[in-house]
């Protein structure tokens, strides 16, 4: 299943509102709206609760304060509250191999695009300071 990329832009023309309206109407008419609805960034709608459930897998490393990556040795990054699109891009980069980390590549390979969007939304939702 294809999803629109975050920040995918519509054609810049005076017909933009019309196009956006038609697109929204079209999407609303599709039964699987959960997967295909668009948020304000133009990305697939995120399910934060599903992201939270999925994140259980990640807690073995990311859920333990001060947990160390084995080699090279450094603390695995804190990702609670991190910016949403950064997490999405990071997971996609692990998934396609452009960012390399053995464990993260294995994990990301098993994630669907929707899983990635959900987990990113869940993590970003922990940011109480409302960074952009």
């Amino acid at each position, binding site marked *: 299943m294809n999803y629109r990329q975050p920040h995918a832009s519509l054609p810049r023309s005076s017909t933009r509102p019309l196009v956006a309206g038609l697109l929204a109407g079209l999407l609303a008419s599709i039964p699987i709206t959960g997967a295909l609805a668009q948020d304000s*960034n133009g990305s697939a709608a995120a399910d934060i609760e599903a992201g*939270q459930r999925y*994140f*259980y897998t*990640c*807690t073995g490393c*990311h*859920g*333990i*304060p*001060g947990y160390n*990556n084995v080699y*090279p*040795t*450094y*603390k*695995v*990054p*804190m*990702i*609670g*509250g*991190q*910016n*949403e*699109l*950064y997490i999405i*891009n990071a997971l996609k980069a692990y998934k396609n191999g*452009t*960012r*390399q980390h053995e464990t993260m590549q294995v994990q990301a390979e098993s994630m669907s695009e929707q899983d990635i969007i959900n987990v990113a939304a*869940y*993590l*970003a939702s*922990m*940011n*109480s*300071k409302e*960074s*952009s």
Partner: protein
Amino acid sequence: MIRRHHSMLLAALWLSAFSLSSMAAGNADAGAEKAVTCQACHGVAGAKSVTPDIPLLAGQHEDYLSHALKAYRSGARQQAVMATFAQQLSDQDIADLSAYFSAQDSALRTAKSGD
């Protein structure tokens, strides 16, 4: 003053030459001066990115930040903008920047299951 800067520079060079790079001690105050460039995108104190594709740095683990900067510098981690900046950084710069950003008030936290 200039002489003092020179001696500090020499000390930094000595440290980076004779110690393992990962062992360079970071100085958060020195990092604050070097972090001016970073804040154009990562926000004041690395705590408010200008766009959501740019990560928050404030409060992130110091050694992870160093690891990331070194990976950008070596090309092991690829991102055009970060590569450009990281290639200008010495090991001491990386240590200082990491010390600075990790010490900043943060919206980041360890995400535990059930949060």
